[in-house]
C-alpha cells in the first residue's frame, strides 16, 4: 500500500446523505476480475447522459463534469457515505479516478474498512466543518490534509482536527500491509486454532473432509 502523509487538492462538495455504493458504482459497471478500469463507471448513473440504457455523453449538470472539479482529489459528503453493498469496486473506482480522501459526517462501515485498505483516507468531520470546507472550495481553492497532525484546512482557514484510530494512522503513514501485520501473529493464530479445535470440533468439519 502507498504511504499517505499529507495531501492538498480540490475538494468536490457532494453533500447529500446516504450516497450508497450502488450510486458510486452500479453493478453493471463492475464486470471485471481486476481492480483496474473501474474509474469510467464512477457515479455513472449521474455522470453521463443516457438514451434509454445507452450512454450518449457527459452530463454537464453533474459536478465532476464541471470546472474545476474535474481535477478533484477530495470528496466532501454528508452522513452514511458508502452505505449498502460491500463492493470494494466503489473504493477502487474512486481511487483510480484520482480521489485521495473522503471527508464525510459518517460512513457505511464496510466502505470505511475498504477505503483504509486501499490508502483512500476516510475522514470524519462535523456538518458545519464540512460546510465550511465546501464554501472555501467553491473559490477554486484547495483543501489540505495532514495525516501526521490529523488536521484538515480549507483555503486560509485554521486547521480542523479529526480523529482516526492510531493503528489506522500508523498503517497509512507507513504504507503497511494489513495481512502482513496479521501474519506477525501466526503463532497465536496456530495456538488459538489448536485449542479451539478441541473445544469446538464440530466447527472444523468441511466439505472436503
Amino acid at each position, binding site marked *: 500500500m502507498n504511504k499517505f502523509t499529507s495531501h492538498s487538492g480540490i475538494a468536490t462538495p457532494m453533500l447529500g446523505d446516504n450516497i450508497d455504493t450502488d*450510486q458510486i458504482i*452500479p453493478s453493471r459497471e463492475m464486470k471485471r476480475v481486476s481492480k483496474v478500469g473501474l474509474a469510467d463507471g464512477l457515479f455513472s448513473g449521474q455522470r453521463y447522459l443516457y438514451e434509454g440504457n445507452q450512454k450518449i455523453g457527459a452530463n454537464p449538470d453533474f459536478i465532476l463534469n464541471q470546472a474545476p472539479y474535474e481535477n478533484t482529489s477530495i470528496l466532501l459528503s454528508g452522513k452514511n457515505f458508502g*452505505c449498502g453493498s460491500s*463492493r470494494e469496486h466503489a473504493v477502487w473506482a474512486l481511487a483510480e479516478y484520482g480521489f485521495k480522501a473522503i471527508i464525510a459526517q459518517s460512513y457505511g462501515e464496510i466502505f470505511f474498512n475498504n477505503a483504509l485498505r486501499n490508502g483512500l483516507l476516510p475522514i470524519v468531520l462535523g456538518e458545519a466543518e464540512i460546510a465550511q470546507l465546501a464554501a472555501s472550495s467553491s473559490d477554486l481553492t484547495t483543501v489540505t490534509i495532514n495525516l501526521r497532525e490529523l488536521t484538515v484546512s480549507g483555503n486560509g482557514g485554521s486547521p480542523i482536527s479529526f480523529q482516526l484510530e492510531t*493503528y489506522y494512522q500508523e498503517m497509512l503513514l507507513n504504507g503497511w500491509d494489513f*495481512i502482513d501485520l496479521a501474519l506477525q501473529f*501466526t503463532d497465536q493464530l496456530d495456538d488459538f486454532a489448536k485449542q479451539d479445535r478441541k473445544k469446538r470440533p*464440530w*466447527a472444523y468439519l468441511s466439505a472436503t473432509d
Partner: protein
Amino acid sequence: MAQTLYDKIWQDHLVTEQEDGSALLYIDQQLLHEVTSPQAFEGLRLADRSVWRIAGNLATPDHNVPTDPKERETGIAGITDLIARTQVSTLDDNCRAFNIEQYDIHDKRQGIVHVMGPEQGATLPGMTIVCGDSHTSTHGAFAALAQGIGTSEVEHVLASQCLLQRKTKNLAVRISGELGHGVYAKDLVLKIIGELGTAGATGHTIEFMGEAIRNLSMEGRMTVCNMAIEAGARAGLVAFDDVTAAYVKGRPLAPSGELWDQALAYWRTLHSDADAVFDTQHSIDVTNMAPQVSWGTSPEMVVAIDGVVPEPVGAKEEGIRNACTYMDLQPGQKMTSIELDRIFIGSCTNARIEDIRVAAQVAKGRKVASSITQAMVVPGSGLVKAQAEEEGLAQILVDAGFEWRAPGCSMCLAMNADKLQPGEHCASTSNRNFEGRQGHNGRTHLVSPATAAAAAIAGHFVDSREFV
C-alpha cells in the same frame, strides 16, 4: 459478568486484543462468489501467499450467473455475457488452483451464497462467518456472527483466517406482539428499518428478540437478519433455540452422532444472559401491523400498504423530495395506486422454499395482470428449485403467468440480463431500493413475496392479506 450473545461469540473467537481495542477475530467459515473474490485470489498470487485453512472456505457462483433456464443448460460455455462468463470461469479456476470446494454452475447445490450456506449446514450456530457480500448478516439467524466484508478482507481471511476488527456495541431490537395473518418476516424487518433508519444501527450488532422472532421459522429469521445491514448494523443475530436445532440437524455439513451432542450442548449457551446490558435498545409492537412497502430510494422509506407517500417536511425534507422525483410519485399518493411494470420474487432476502410457497398460494388459480411486462420467480438455489417443482409450486406459478427461473441473485442487483428498463416500477422481494439498483433509472419497491405476488395479479399494489 452477564454477556450478550454477541459478547459470547466475540470472546470465543478472540485471538488477540491490543490495548487500543484492535483485535484479531478468528473466522470459522468464509463463503466465496464470482464477483468479489477474483481480486482477492489475485492478491494472494501476487504476494505468493497460501490459503491458511482451505476447509474454512466454500464457493458458489451467484451474482452474475444467467437465470434463463435455456442459457443455463450448457453451463459456463452457454453464458452469453462474456464478462460474466469470465467471472464464473475465474471462480472455477481459482477454486481448482487453491483446492477450495465449490458448488459450480452445474451443481444442484449451487445458489445464492446466503441460501446455500444454511441449506448445506456450512452455516452453524456459534460460528464466525464472512463473505464478500453485505447481506452475509443473513446467517446471524443461526446465532452466528456473520459479517459482510470487502475484497481486501476476503484476501485477508484467505491468507490468515482472521480479521482485524474492533468490537461493536450491542443493540437489542425487542419485538412485542404477534404478526397477523398474511403479515410476514419481510414486513417486520421493513418496519424495523423504517423506524431505525439506514444508519440507526451503525457501529452496532443487532440482536432481534421477542415473541414475534421466536415464532418465526428459520427462513423468516434469515429474512430479518438479512436486512440488518440496511439499518447500518455490522451484523444481526437471533438466539439459538429448538427451531434452529431442528433446521440444522441432518444438513450435509452439520455434525452428527457424538459431535452433534457436543455441539448442541455448546449451542444451548448461545443466547444473551437475562441480565445482559445492551448499549442501545429499540422496541416495536407489531400487533395490528399491516404489510409494509417501500415508496422511496432508501430502505428506511417505508409505509404500510394502506398508507400514502409522505409529505416533504421535517429534517428529511430534501431526501423525500428527491426520492419523489426519482420515483415519479406525489406526496399523499396512495401506495395502492402505484401501478407496476415488473415483479421480482427472489434474492437472498426472499428466495427460500417458504417464500416460494407463499407466492404460489397467492398465485394459485389466478393470472398475472396483462399490464405487467414481466413477473419472475428466481429460486435461491438448485435445491429450492427442485423442491418447489416437486411440491407443484413452480407449475402453479407458471400457470398464473410467472416466469420460473434458474437460481441466482438476478434482478436484486441487476448485474446480469435481469433488470428494469428506465422508469419502470418493480415490486421486488429484494433488499435495496437505491437509485439504479435494479437497472438505470429503475424504480424499486421492497415488499414481501405475498405482496409482490398479489401486486402481479392486481397490476398495482394491493393488501395481500385479501389473497392468503
